[in-house]
């Protein structure tokens, strides 16, 4: 049996999904964390659960809400688990009403009821259940997890159906009946009444699900009803339907919440914290400080340099025990040092893997810290903080969410743009995201910069690279906004979630999950990349290469190296590393190490780092961009534009550095 998990954004859906399935889906304290569906089995059952993006309505206003609409319309499922935020039932029940109209079995979980009680109010779930005609239970993702799992699983076995029929008034009721009749010959997954209601509300996915030939008749009904509703009620169809649903919700909530006392103190405290976090100057300094702290903890050395310390430990362990042991094993099974297989295993795969494995702690710490930012609700405040700046260049405060996500990995960052309502701002954000260095690129910079600087200097340099990336994002967005979507309107609406304590278990889970993903990624792209690099260096036009300068990679790298000569790294090693970086950014470090690349001077090294930080999105990001934009035009721009920008920016910086130093 399959069940859908649906609810408003930021009601704790993903947390409950994780409790039920024992998975670690990304959880945040702001709307828009889940932007695609996830399907997993409920722990110790045969039931499948589909976690959907948060939505306020089944009638979508953004790409992630469209995922919900399409799943409800087209997927096979046996029932719906509707998660509500117990603190905001009135608004949450608007979606519940639409789900009840579907006539499918439904279980309602009033989540975060504990937070409601802390605020001095009590929730009567029995009365709410009676008023809605379906089961309602209290849940909390921070309570006893097995108890919640058992409670929900038991209820799934006996889910109730109560097809809600709301009186929308004579005109809309008649329109629903007429559209139902028109749809009589249509084959639909869900009830025709529900589709009729959704079409009247303007649900584009519902309209797309029917045969185009029936559309003119339906449009005629909508047009006549629109005129009548405007004349009699001075409202739009969807506006009147909304108000009628609110009337139903007000009745359903009568006597459901009892207020014992107000909880003003914590609200006042939160307001003071918000004033500071969203203050244009203080808030910006706090944001830079937070980023600096994250980089120091993740990639720095010395005080607070946790990532650097752990990387040192792993490096020592690998050098002392693993590398020599593997070389000995290779020799003991008959592989000779100058044989192809020995080289492939030890110089290709093992060297490449160990070069990257030392970065695992840094990436894990970075992802854990980003999870903390999400969990406490800081990300939404940063969106507010930066809307003024971002709106001036054609972006939106919400663009900061994918940008921060891009500090980890560009692929989820590209997908995170789905929660943006405006197409213009969404495309501009996608096209400029590649200028934000991802978590696996940063260790490469740290590695190169670490050759001539140490301690805080590395962290500050990394921060400057990020700042450069952000400046390029702003300038590029402005240029793009002047060139395309000039007629598109813009809007910024964001919910400010309460500040919450991050869930430690979850933060650890995220870290471990990312380590697993990172190693998995290394196991595919890295190994493939290293095998390619080794094969291309082992063989040359004349067979087995006598030296690197006789290899295929030398000829390929040398072919494009002159292009990079004005930038100071026109060597075949650096060029080859950049080519391999297109496959995956971590390949750059491994290739540089495998080829013993040397940049010669500090300025050359800095030039290489600047170029690498801007030059091209990796292959998986390109695939994500194509998937999200569904356009070769935008995908080509996302590849070609950064190359030009990286070249010009690096050249300018190099000239400045040569003059100054």
């Amino acid at each position, binding site marked *: 049996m399959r069940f859908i998990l649906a609810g408003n954004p930021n009601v704790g859906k993903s947390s409950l999904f994780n409790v039920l399935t024992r998975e670690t889906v990304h959880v945040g304290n702001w709307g828009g964390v889940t932007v695609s569906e996830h399907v997993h089995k409920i722990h110790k059952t045969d039931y499948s659960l589909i976690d959907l993006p948060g939505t306020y309505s089944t009638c979508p206003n953004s790409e992630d809400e469209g995922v919900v609409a399409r799943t409800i319309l087209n997927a096979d499922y046996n029932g719906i688990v509707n998660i509500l935020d117990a603190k905001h039932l009135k*608004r949450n029940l608007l979606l519940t009403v639409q789900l009840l109209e579907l006539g499918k079995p439904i279980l309602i979980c009033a989540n975060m009821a504990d937070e409601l009680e802390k605020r001095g109010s009590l929730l009567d779930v029995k009365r709410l259940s009676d008023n809605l005609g379906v089961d309602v239970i209290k849940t909390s993702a921070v309570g006893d997890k097995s108890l919640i799992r058992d409670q929900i699983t038991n209820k799934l076995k006996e889910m109730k159906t109560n097809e809600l029929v709301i009186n929308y008034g004579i005109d809309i009721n008649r329109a629903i009946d007429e559209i139902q009749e028109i749809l009589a010959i249509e084959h639909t997954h869900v009830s025709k009444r529900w589709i009729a209601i959704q079409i009247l509300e303007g649900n584009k996915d519902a309209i797309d699900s029917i045969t185009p030939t029936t559309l003119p008749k339906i449009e005629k009904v909508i047009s006549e009803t629109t005129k009548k509703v405007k004349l009699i009620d001075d409202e739009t169809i969807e506006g009147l339907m909304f108000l009628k649903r609110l009337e139903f919700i007000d009745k359903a909530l009568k006597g459901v919440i009892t207020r014992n006392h107000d909880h003003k103190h914590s609200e006042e405290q939160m*307001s003071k914290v918000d004033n500071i976090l969203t203050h244009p100057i203080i808030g910006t300094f706090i944001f830079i400080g937070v980023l600096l702290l994250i980089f120091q903890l993740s990639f720095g050395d010395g005080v607070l340099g946790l990532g650097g310390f752990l990387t040192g430990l792993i490096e020592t362990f690998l050098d002392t025990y693993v590398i020599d042991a593997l070389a000995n094993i290779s020799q003991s099974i008959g592989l000779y040092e100058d044989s192809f297989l020995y080289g492939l295993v030890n110089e290709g795969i093992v060297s490449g893997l160990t070069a990257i494995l030392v970065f695992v702690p840094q990436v894990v710490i970075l992802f854990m810290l980003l999870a903390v930012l999400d969990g406490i609700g800081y990300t939404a405040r940063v969106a507010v903080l930066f*809307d*003024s700046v971002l*709106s001036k260049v054609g972006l939106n405060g919400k663009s900061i969410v994918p940008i921060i996500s891009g500090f980890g990995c560009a692929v989820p960052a590209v997908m995170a743009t789905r929660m943006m309502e405006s197409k213009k701002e969404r495309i501009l954000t996608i096209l400029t995201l590649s200028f934000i260095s991802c978590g696996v690129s940063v260790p490469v910079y740290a590695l190169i910069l670490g050759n001539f600087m140490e301690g805080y200097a590395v962290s500050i340099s990394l921060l400057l690279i990020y700042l450069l990336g952000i400046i390029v994002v702003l300038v590029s967005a402005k240029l793009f906004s002047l060139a395309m979507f000039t007629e598109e309107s813009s*809007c910024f609406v964001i919910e*400010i979630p309460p500040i919450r304590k991050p869930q430690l278990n979850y933060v650890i889970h995220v870290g471990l999950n990312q380590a697993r993903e990172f190693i998995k990624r290394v196991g595919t792209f890295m190994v493939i990349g290293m095998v390619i690099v080794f094969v291309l260096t082992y063989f040359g036009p004349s067979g087995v290469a006598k030296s690197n300068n006789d290899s295929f990679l030398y000829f390929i790298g040398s072919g494009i190296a002159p292009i990079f000569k004005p930038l100071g790294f026109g060597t075949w090693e650096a060029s080859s590393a950049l080519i391999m970086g297109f496959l995956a950014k971590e390949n750059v470090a491994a290739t540089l190490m495998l080829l013993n690349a040397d940049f010669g001077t500090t300025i050359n090294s800095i030039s290489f780092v600047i170029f690498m930080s801007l030059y091209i999105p990796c292959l998986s990001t390109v695939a994500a961009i194509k998937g999200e934009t569904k356009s070769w035009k935008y995908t080509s721009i996302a590849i070609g534009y950064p190359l030009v920008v990286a070249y010009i920016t690096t050249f300018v910086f190099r000239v400045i550095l040569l003059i100054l130093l």
Partner: protein
Amino acid sequence: MKLSDLETNKYSKVQDTSKLGKELSNILRLRGIYRGAEIQVKRRIYGGRLLILETNGIQLCIRSVDAQRIEVL
């Protein structure tokens, strides 16, 4: 009166959102800004360019240019 002119911390009721256009009106309605909803401006940020509003116990941030198109009582 326009929502953007509402004094900070004073309560009012939303009267009309039609000037926002269909799309934005729908988005705000589902987040709690609809005809008859009680609303309060909690704070103004960036010299009033952004407003933090509270409606039905939820805090929302919108731009002042959009608040100018919302009529309140």
